């Protein structure tokens, strides 16, 4: 139950800089998710917070205290590893009570704390088992239980769900959200899966090659991505990017022309953009619809029917590929020609350097927070 502040955190491996100066603050009881492609440094950053990797430069503060040089076990953190890292020769109860045993907690107290954690995680009847006798989801919960018994200030999760199958992952996601609410603890969670990030986070931190691309609430990142990378990373399927040219600038909108010749009024503040500048139009698959007189024409190459919705992988006349989300009921087949209408209000514009051009209006839910509503018992 505490705040974490990172000030100019850097990490070098020899001459290679993997974390290039990160400033970040994580509030009390916040569920913060580090997300990014593999190799972006998110796990390294988490391990630096945990104390498993040394910090090359910068300050790491918990509750206002600099803890760069405090050993991992004294930082008041608990970590759940990707492989769970359970001790195979110990029973579930011993696994969960190991840190207390090392800390010299009396046996009775230890048992009470383990039982309490087991109750929260519904592990009561598995306490005598060895890890190898448990299913993946149960091992996962033991690993979380091992973290809970330490009553840490901050929970750290390193891709904890990536070894589970899809349905179990959804279930554990809900479980974790419930736990976060019940324990009212600060949590930092690392994942490469943007759906996990969107569903669980209070704050998402998008990382790429050692720098923070953007940090904000899930809907802020969805509706107001700061650059093309964040826009492409958040949302599934990916946002479509189309080259365009600015043709007119007014106080309420910027008009662009697409290669197909169609013209669109996008409600963004043009800022430095002038007529004739090359920009990139970003539009999510869910913000397009099939219509008779659309701006874009193309041929459907692949159809993915999920039942509720259908994704059409469409090749436009100029050759670019576009993913369109359509209703699950449409009968469109492969190689059919379709006409696509865009929703200008949901479109994004990026300048020549890939930075987003600011929108006229902020999305009403962009600052929505999902903090725990009740205190820990």
């Amino acid at each position, binding site marked *: 139950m505490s705040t974490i502040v990172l000030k100019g955190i850097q990490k070098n491996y020899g001459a290679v800089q993997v974390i290039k100066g990160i400033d970040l603050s994580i509030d009390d009881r916040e569920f913060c998710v580090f997300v990014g492609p593999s190799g972006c440094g998110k796990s390294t950053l988490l391990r630096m917070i945990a104390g*498993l990797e040394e910090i090359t430069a910068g300050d790491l503060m918990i509750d206002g205290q600099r803890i760069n040089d405090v050993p991992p076990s004294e930082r008041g953190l608990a970590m759940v590893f990707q492989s769970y*890292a359970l001790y195979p020769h110990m029973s579930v109860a011993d696994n969960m009570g190991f840190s207390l045993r090392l800390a010299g907690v009396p046996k009775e107290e230890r048992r009470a704390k383990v039982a309490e954690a087991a109750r929260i995680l519904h592990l009561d009847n598995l306490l005598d088992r060895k890890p190898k006798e448990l299913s993946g989801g149960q091992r996962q919960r033991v690993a979380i239980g091992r973290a809970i018994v330490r009553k840490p200030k901050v929970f750290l999760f390193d891709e904890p769900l990536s070894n589970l199958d899809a349905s179990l992952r959804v279930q554990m996601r809900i479980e974790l959200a419930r736990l976060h609410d019940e324990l009212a603890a600060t949590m930092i969670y690392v994942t490469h899966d943007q759906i996990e990030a969107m569903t669980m986070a209070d704050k998402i931190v998008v990382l790429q090659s050692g720098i923070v691309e953007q940090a904000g609430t899930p809907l802020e990142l969805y509706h107001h991505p700061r650059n093309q990378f964040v826009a492409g990373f958040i949302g599934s399927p990916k946002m479509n990017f189309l080259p365009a040219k600015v043709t007119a600038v007014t106080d309420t909108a910027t008009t662009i022309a697409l290669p197909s010749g169609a013209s669109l009024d996008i409600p963004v503040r043009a800022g430095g953009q002038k007529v004739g500048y090359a920009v990139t139009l970003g539009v999510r698959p869910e913000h397009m619809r099939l219509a008779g007189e659309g701006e874009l024409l193309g041929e459907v190459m692949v159809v993915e029917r999920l039942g509720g919705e259908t994704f059409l992988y469409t090749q436009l006349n100029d050759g670019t590929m576009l993913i369109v989300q359509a209703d699950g009921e449409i009968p469109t087949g492969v190689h059919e020609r379709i006409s696509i209408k865009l929703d200008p209000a949901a479109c994004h514009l990026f300048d020549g350097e890939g930075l987003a051009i600011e929108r006229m209006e902020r999305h009403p839910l962009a600052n929505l927070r999902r903090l725990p509503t009740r205190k820990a018992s």
Partner: protein
Amino acid sequence: MASTTTAAPVPGTSTTVGGRSQRNVKTLPLVAPSVVILFLWMIVPLAMTLWFSFQYYNLLDPTVGGFAGFENYTFLLTDPSLWTAMINTIFLVFWVLVITVGLGTLLAVLFDQDFYGRSIARLLAIAPFFVMPTVSALVWKNMLMHPVNGLFAFFTRSLGLPAIDFFGSFPLTSVIIIVAWQWLPFALLILLTAIQSLDSEQKEAARMDGAGPFSMFFFIILPHLGRAISVVIMIETIFLLSVFAEIYVTTSGGPGLASTNLAFLIYLRALREYDVGGASAAGVIAVILANIVAVFLVRSIAKNIAD
């Protein structure tokens, strides 16, 4: 909230057992030739040894011969030298195991650390295993433990102390030291690979849980090594029961019988006294002894490995 109890899959023991027995039936004709050859390989010498052990058979005296009944055995079992040899054998095996496994574990932890020149240090630590027993015994006898020329004697003399006559005063201990020196690399090699297979996240989890170097060793590394240690003990025991060259080269079993083990006693009986009958009887006793040890060992280790 979603239901949080997921059914644990019961480890499928029944399927594997069924599958294995089924496979045995199908592959029996295929493995039969090698089983038959191995069986003959084992049974012919054993049968001959058994046969000789019930015969009067001395190479120096061709006149005696014929069926001896249990006389070779009674002669041996009432001979105090057999008991001395047995005790020496057990002593030797036990202490070499203690030294190699104990030191081997510590060295394995050491060589698992990252330090400059680690690969060369590892190579040097493993080198004694490549030296043949006769040679290493000779090196120890003439260059290290020799009371006049030996390195140890040089050290003690330069400290103003009298030189120790290792093979005269502590014959069995000296043999144990030599054999342990030879087998330490083996234990180190197996235990080092076992340590390297320890999941690094497990060590990190233990660090987060507050484990210092000692708790890390006793709670994480040592349990992880349990299986490898059983393997080392089993393999070493098999070879240590038959240590011969080191004794032959250094002490010749002496002074008296102080460093005579079973293998050396059989040699003394068979080749020094040319008593094939008596030596065969001692051999049979050694086989029985080895089997008793093997049954216990294989049982406990199989249980350990099946875990």
